[in-house]
């Protein structure tokens, strides 16, 4: 029995080693995105190569999937219904964890690159990246709320599914670019690259892109959180000064 167990373990090791034959060597055009005063969105180039110990396997073909996910937070999705002639929020469903930004780029259709089981395990597709726990009992169609979240976020480019935008040369070199919209939240953006064959993930690489405010943006943001009272007084002082200044200038102009 003992021998059998160790034999199984050894076999497993061999299998894992065989699967890990193809590995990712990654490059990023930048690993920090700085938000300054004239920030208007950004583009990140994700590129890399597949390192192999043996010859290129013939079939099935290699596919590459790149995902970038912003920091997650809980959301409440509300639905309006007509009550007493006006449209009001009636039902609400809580989404446990939804990324503030999520992009999936693939070398072919996502459905061809990844099986359902693998998607479930690695949470690659947009609906899988959103974690939603049960809706209240009175709501039977909770999936329409998740769909609504994806629809609204997709409309503002916060969620992107870019199929076929990863270019793959000689099954070795790959590259894609991810567009980050102007409305970006600060934080650590998890970037994952998957290599798949026949819908199975054969290699995975993870890294992070840091999005942070710099300069005046950083300073003002920090002040507003850490020293809110001072920040409030400063806002008022600027307002009063501007109001007085404009009045004084106009008085001079009228003379």
């Amino acid at each position, binding site marked *: 029995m003992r021998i059998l167990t160790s034999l199984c373990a050894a076999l497993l090791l061999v299998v894992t080693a065989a699967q890990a034959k193809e590995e990712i060597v990654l490059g990023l055009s930048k690993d920090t995105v700085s*938000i*300054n*005063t*004239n*920030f*208007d*969105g950004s583009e990140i180039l994700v590129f890399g190569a597949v390192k192999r110990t043996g010859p290129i396997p013939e079939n099935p073909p290699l596919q590459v999937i790149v995902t970038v996910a912003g920091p997650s*937070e*809980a*959301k*409440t*999705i*509300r*639905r*309006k*219904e*007509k009550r007493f*002639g*006006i*449209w*009001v*929020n009636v039902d*609400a469903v*809580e989404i*446990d964890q939804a990324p503030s930004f999520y992009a999936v780029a693939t070398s072919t259709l996502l459905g061809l690159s990844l099986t359902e089981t693998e998607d479930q395990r690695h949470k690659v597709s947009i609906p899988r990246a959103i974690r939603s726990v049960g809706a209240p009992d009175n709501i039977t169609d909770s999936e329409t709320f998740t769909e*609504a*979240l994806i*629809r*609204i*976020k997709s409309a503002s480019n916060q969620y992107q599914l870019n199929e076929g935008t990863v270019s793959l040369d000689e099954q070795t070199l790959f590259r894609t670019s991810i567009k980050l919209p*102007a*409305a*970006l*939240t600060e934080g650590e953006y998890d970037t994952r690259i998957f290599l798949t064959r026949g819908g199975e993930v054969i290699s995975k690489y993870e890294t992070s892109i840091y999005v942070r*405010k710099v300069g*005046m*943006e950083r300073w*003002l*943001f920090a002040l*507003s*959180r850490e020293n*809110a*009272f001072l*920040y*409030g*007084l*400063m*806002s*008022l002082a*600027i*307002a*009063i000064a*501007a*109001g*007085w*200044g*404009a*009045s004084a200038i*106009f*008085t001079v102009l009228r003379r």
Partner: protein
Amino acid sequence: MQIYLPIAEVSVNAFLLLGLGGMVGVLSGMFGVGGGFLMTPLLFFIGIPPAVAVATEANQIVASSFSGVLAHFKRKTVDLRMGTVLLIGGLIGAAVGVMVFNYLKAQGQVDLLVKLCYVVFLGIIGGLMFFESLNAIRNVKKGKPPARKKHNWIHGLPFKMRFRVSGLYISVIPPVIVGISVGVLAAIMGVGGGFIMVPAMIYLLGMPTKVVVGTSLFQIIFVTAFTTMLHATTNFTVDIVLAVLLLVGGVIGAQVGTRIGVKMKAEQLRILLAIMVLAVCGKLAFDLLVQPAELYSIATGGH
């Protein structure tokens, strides 16, 4: 020129904000309203998160009102005594308003209630003002003298006080109540409340129109400053970059507006304000009645 707002976390066109500030500033100076009831919905429309829009708008109103009130001080059209009485009510109201706001936010109904308030208040006030000023204009054309102020129930209340600048001798209860209701609105809707206060002062308190504008601006400065501090310290939603852009346009606009206002007749001023109030009311009512394109909305955070 795109500019990234540090607190709102969105990127917007700086000239668009300057223009909006200027346009609303002109109206602010002309009518003695802060212009918040126009600006706040406009900010929603260009994609500023509502919480940030409401808080920042309060800050901007401080600037445009301050600029406006200085012009009125020079012409001695500010009733400081009345302003102080209104202010006492206003501060109480603002504190109550923030509590109401936080309660409704948790219920997910804050948008609806704010809009309903707008529709009801703007509808009633706009309608009353419109017909009253229309009558006044007709009377002037026919050469009839304007009707003398009548004594109504308000003059029977206790705690009477003399307001020399306004030429009134009335109880302090009505102004305090007006102040409280305006304070509540200021906190909930991110407006100065001038659109409620100006008509209330004219029709309820019987103050002369020329004094009303300066006095209302005087009160608004303090109530919105108080609201700004409340939002900045509890919700962290005052965006100073957004405020500066809006107020640069706003203060210049307010100066221009004040000068236009002086040249116009009181009835004309009132009827223009009435039309504007009714237009905003109509737009909001329309949005509530017609099925929205997107039935779902996303709010941050769970319960």
